[in-house]
């Protein structure tokens, strides 16, 4: 049949962008600061909830339609119509969602850093993992947020007014990629600094860091705020892409995909994160039966499970050969290192 590469391109680019942001945020928290935030999916979901709830409510208001159940598919149709007719509105809502989600994500990051001030390592991981699950259970039971178990649909692509939905998706994926790359540059700036060094000192030996005058709980908290804020931004990008927000989609497996990306690429190394996220995304998209068919490969059996196993094995293999990840940690690129290099 006619191969139509466009959906695959948008799919790869968008999900790469979204997961890159998540992976970068985890790298800041875990790779640099040593705080395993296994509640990543929770902060990701916060962004999606904010984007969904805020955008949907605002669009309903702008539509002037009343008496329609916010969660109904009819309401979703109404929202799409409004977005189609008011480009500036949906773009404004998209941008505002990004800002609000970043702020709300940061606040929740701060609140959850409370246990982080007191717990270390494994305990923190478990507490945050549980936190994520509690958040999901809350969202599925509190229907005004994102319509509980049914999920909220009708969160229009901010470029839906372009008309051609395929072009709208493609253009949106370019926006996601641009934001993700911007996040990469910011993360690079953030960590190649005394702040990055400070995070690493806590990761390497928290007691010594504190003996050297660092208020370690505060610093750990700041890393969690930054990471959570970034994850929430990723959640917004996700919601506007999938155009539905369902609480039950934010399950721990998402966190583990992110963790794997960082471990595979190499911790405390943003280039590694770029690579790890890329490898994982491509492995997912390019081992599918559909893609094999594009290549003209026809398999006689269902490869769904096989590809999961193969992907898993490949990751294990890579980590066995290179336990430090594909790209190993490098000294931070700070003026101090430059001065030291000048000497010779």
């Amino acid at each position, binding site marked *: *049949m006619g191969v139509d590469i466009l*959906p695959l391109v948008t799919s790869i680019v968008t999900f790469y962008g979204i997961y890159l942001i998540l992976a970068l945020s985890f790298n800041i928290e875990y790779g640099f600061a040593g705080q395993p935030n296994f509640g990543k999916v929770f902060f990701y979901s916060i962004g999606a909830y904010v984007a969904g709830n805020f955008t949907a409510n605002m669009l309903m208001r702008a539509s002037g339609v009343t008496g329609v159940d916010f969660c109904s*598919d009819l309401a979703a149709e109404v929202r799409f119509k409004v977005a189609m007719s008011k480009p500036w509105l949906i773009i404004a809502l998209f941008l505002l969602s990004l800002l609000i989600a970043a702020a709300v994500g940061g606040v929740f990051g701060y609140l959850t850093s409370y246990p982080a001030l007191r717990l270390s390592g494994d305990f923190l991981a478990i507490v945050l993992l549980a936190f994520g699950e509690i958040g999901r*259970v809350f969202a599925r039971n509190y229907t005004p947020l994102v319509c509980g178990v049914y999920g909220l649909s009708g969160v229009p692509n901010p470029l839906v007014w372009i008309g051609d939905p395929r072009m709208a998706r493609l253009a949106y994926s370019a926006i996601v990629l641009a934001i993700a790359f911007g996040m990469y540059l910011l993360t690079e700036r953030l960590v190649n600094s005394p702040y990055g060094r400070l995070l690493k000192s806590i990761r390497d030996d928290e007691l010594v860091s504190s003996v050297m005058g660092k208020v370690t709980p505060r610093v750990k908290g700041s890393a969690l705020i930054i990471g959570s804020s970034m994850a929430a931004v990723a959640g917004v990008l996700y919601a506007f892409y999938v155009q539905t927000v369902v609480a039950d989609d934010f399950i721990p497996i998402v966190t583990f995909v992110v963790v794997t990306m960082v471990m595979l690429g190499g911790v405390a190394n943003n280039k590694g994160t770029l690579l790890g996220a890329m490898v994982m995304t491509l492995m997912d998209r390019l081992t599918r*039966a559909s*893609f094999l068919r594009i290549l003209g490969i026809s398999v006689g059996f269902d490869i769904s499970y096989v590809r999961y196993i193969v992907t898993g094995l490949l990751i294990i293999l890579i980590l066995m050969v290179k336990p430090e990840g594909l790209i190993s940690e490098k000294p931070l690129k700070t003026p101090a290192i430059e001065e030291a290099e000048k000497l010779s």
Partner: protein
Amino acid sequence: MAEEKKGLKYGLAASVLLNIILLAGVAWALTHPKVVEKPAPAGPAPTVTVTVTATKTVTPTAPAAPAGIIEYPIGLAIAVSGPYAVEGPYRRDAALLAIEHVNKMLEAAGSPIRFKPIHEDSKGTAEGAIAALEALAAAGVKVVVGPLSSKEVRAVKSFADAHKIVCISPSSTAPGLAVPDDYIFRVVQTDVAQAKALAQVVAELGYTKVAIIGRDDDYGRGIADMFEKLFTEKYGGTVKKLMYTPDLPDYSTEVQRLAEMVSDLGADEKTAVLIIAFDADGLNILGHARLNPVLSKVRWFGSESLKRPTFIPPKAPAEIGEFVVSVKLTGLFPSPERNPVTEFFEKEYRSKYGKDPTPYSYYAYDAAWLACLSVLAAGKYDGEAVKKVLPTVAEKYIGASGYKKLDENGDCAGSDYRIWTVVVEAGEYKFKEVGVWSFATEKVSFFG
């Protein structure tokens, strides 16, 4: 400074690479504004095969199909992991069986056309479903069986409409998704129908008070909410609801609370329990309930998902079997009376996979048949054309799950419901049909 530049270089390289992919996509989109439509072969001996011409631009190797054979892909966006790790494969297998049967028919008729299933695991999540559809779309798939759940269907709806990909869901039942003139078709009745029939059956059997224990997901809530509304408003009954989180390891506290609810309702001959559960949670709940004197005293009803071999021996423990018989567990299952296709499907499914089909497998089988028949009827592999003929094809079709006439929203127009209960015959546990609820007349009648 050199180091910093190098970092930037890596980043730029990555973004350049992605942008190349992106630009390639744009270029492709611009040069191929529409997916090339291949005219359907007119005669019995076509010389050009669709597969070869279509894939020529991408790769010289075409999928292995014998010369002269025209292959149409049917996407199966069916979750086989996450919440569907157990149930999903049953439905996928049913769809595969249907495609096999269609191909046999075509082969016997000397037709050059064959259907090729391409399965993508949609994982039961919005993200998984959209990714599956994107992958299928890239491979040129225009007709898809799936996704399974309503939330997945919602997630792919705008994508399917935009790319003119027909999706036939075997099991999405949310009433809200009933939208006319879209690319989403559903071959199962919405929850409204089941809840309606169930409420009537329960009421006519003389029960006025019902305690519901149900999964807190779109499936459980759909039935429970609708049942509560109808049972209280139309039949003046009383309902208490307990919705539980799916996939917990144990439900003893929930069962305890259910017993309290039943006691509050009186636990008399007018009180019943309605359970809306899947396999693992259902078994666990029944296992606890069997030991509870209050819950053993009242009548039980169940959603159609309780009509699975899982719940009766030999698969279930003997104690569970005894319990469901003693509380006369009764439920519905949508279908007209069994028809020859039902029998044929069950026989074929068992002999091929060595297991019994689950209730929704029948729908998956029919969804796949409808997909293939509609492509054949359309005369070309084109989403728009398939969408146009599908309602007509469905109207003339009787499948393993019965009549498949669709309403103006592209959803199953509704059908009769069988009333089943569990009995022991010659030492063997069985689901026995004891009555029927007629869609046309909205009347309940019991056999014998």
